[in-house]
């Protein structure tokens, strides 16, 4: 075991896979010489050389197009889109090309590509650099979608993503880069499509993702100590494939579902989970489902305003307690 930041885990995960498999290449803006604008990819150029670790022009369609073409012809590229908001400028390659190619060709083409991107708010970057857009990807058939909450998950899920034969959107949370966690020594490979039960309770099941996971855990502590509410906390980790087995089991166990989403309200992944529960375990639900999200708003820049819209531990506790009353 060793302590590692989420940021360093990114470079570690990429390095682990590049060392293992020569077909793994890495490209993006400022990722090589500068080591990434979040300093998450330092040392890779030095270790793997300029043939495998490449700086690109500011041209996200070219970056992802290049990754796609390479993936179709024997490489296993990892492409960085600096901020997840920028997926909008290359959305066609993601949603219409990568996601559909295998299906349209009836399996003639395989698409082992990973898109890493910095997602989420908290850095006072304003409306165009703070969005949680994991739903954009979840909506598109043909994309797998992962969002780690800990350094160990960064490495394990990144390795799983790189080894996966299908396109994976890998959402790193920019407010987690500085956080630390324990990571086992040696190769680390996880599995896509497995949620993690982080805490077991009896009254309510909190389902969270990425930066909302630590907040859900903190809220669960407060619910227990201050309100006598015993909460299960599940880290979804993988939106596609979705571990409905674990989710439905844990929701049924407590009978109450709360999703904690950083994304704005409409069509969030929480809605999907609620709709599955409302269909498949309706009779195990003991009361209203609750979705705690950022309100359906762009993100403001000023620190007090940004803090006011993101789900905080306070708000999570408050909304849950109110629903229980």
């Amino acid at each position, binding site marked *: 075991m060793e302590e590692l930041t989420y940021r360093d885990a990114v470079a570690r995960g990429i390095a682990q896979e590049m060392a293992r498999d020569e077909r793994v290449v890495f490209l993006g803006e400022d990722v090589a010489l500068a080591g990434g604008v979040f300093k998450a990819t330092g040392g890779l150029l030095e270790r793997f050389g300029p043939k495998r670790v490449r700086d690109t022009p500011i041209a996200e*369609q070219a970056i992802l197009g290049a990754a796609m073409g390479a993936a179709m012809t024997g490489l296993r590229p990892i492409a960085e889109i600096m901020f997840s908001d920028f997926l909008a400028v290359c959305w066609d390659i993601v949603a219409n090309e990568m996601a559909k190619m295998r299906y349209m060709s009836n399996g003639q083409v395989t698409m082992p590509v990973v898109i890493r991107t910095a997602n989420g708010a908290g850095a006072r970057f304003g409306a165009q650099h703070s969005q949680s857009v994991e739903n954009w990807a979840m909506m598109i058939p043909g994309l797998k979608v992962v969002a780690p909450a800990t350094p160990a998950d960064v490495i394990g899920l990144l390795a799983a993503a790189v080894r996966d034969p299908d396109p994976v959107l890998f959402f790193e949370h920019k407010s987690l880069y500085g956080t630390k966690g324990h990571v086992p020594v040696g190769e680390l490979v996880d599995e896509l499509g497995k949620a993690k039960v982080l805490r077991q309770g009896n009254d309510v099941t909190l389902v969270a993702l990425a930066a909302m996971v630590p907040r859900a855990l903190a809220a669960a502590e407060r619910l227990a100590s201050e309100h006598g509410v015993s909460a299960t906390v599940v880290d979804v980790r993988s939106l596609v494939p979705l571990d409905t087995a674990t989710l439905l089991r844990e929701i049924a166990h407590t009978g109450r579902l709360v999703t904690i989403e950083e994304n704005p309200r409409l069509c969030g992944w929480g809605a999907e989970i609620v709709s599955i529960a409302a269909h498949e375990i309706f009779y195990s639900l003991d009361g209203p489902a609750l979705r705690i999200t950022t309100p359906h708003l762009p993100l403001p820049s000023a620190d007090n305003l940004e803090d006011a819209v993101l789900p905080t531990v306070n708000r999570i506790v408050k909304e849950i307690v109110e629903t229980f009353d």
Partner: protein
Amino acid sequence: MSQTGASQAAQDCEPDRATRLQLYRKMLDVRLVEKRAYDLFMQNLIKGTSHLALGQEAIAAAFGVAMRKDDYSFCTYRGHAHTLVRGASMVGVLGELMGRECGLMAGKGGSMHLTSAEHGALGSYAIVGAHLPIAAGAAWSAQYRGTQQVAVCFFGDGTTNIGAFHEALNFAAVWKLPVVFVCENNLYMEYTPIGTVTAVQHPAADRAAAYALESIIVDGNDVDAVYAVAMRALARARAGEGPSLIEAKTYRHSGHSRADPGKYRPTPEIEAWMKRDPLPMYRQRLVSLSIPEAELAAIENDVRAQVDAATEAARNSRPPPVELAFTQLWADGGFAWRN
């Protein structure tokens, strides 16, 4: 027609007799399959839409002959030609258009998405511009693996005004990728003349300098001329000298797609171009080069017979089993998003 570099190249790469017959045969393959596709529409045996390459056969044919078997090609919704010339079967193409199980993708892709990976035909893309960066990616992979494969990317004049064109060209130039971008300038987008929405006269060639590339214009209805520029661009790419951008001037005989009678085009323009139909033009040249009529007729009969046979086979193929709709989203063959 103004030509830069092309005539030079034509001299370097004068095709020999056998190559010329191959070029003729490939053009015929495309011509007769496209005509058949048209007929099948009229019989309502092809649904959806379809974009024919009638009149533009010389470009695909020339590249089909010039390319190495293991090269990659990328094309658009107007991609029957480019798929056929790589070696994909006529049954596979016509079957796909008809939505039959024998289709290249068993009916899952349709006319706009013909793909034959075993022949290096890595897809037909129906979003204008998208495949240019993807082709650059395949070229990057070839460069990385050191295989000397080349990626060839076909697109239309209208495509030169979209962002992906620009990104792909600059990217390919900077990384010196072995990719050949081929703009088939047929003077129209869907119904709108390219000249009315483009700042320069030659939508591709006049942009080459923006990527430090040579400006190349070729008569896209002269299969020998296209063959020559193709050979040169492919050689350049294989030699590690980077991408090329070729503008081939041509004309489509029918409308943009199935739905379009093409009435917006002035009659004199159509007539002038019909006189330059690449097939009769080339047949005449072959005859003038002393290739016996009988030899040409034999090829024609052969291709005609192949198209007839392929049509029959496709007609007799059943519709894809419905379960097929639920396969091959993922590499495991299935479509599950949950456990």
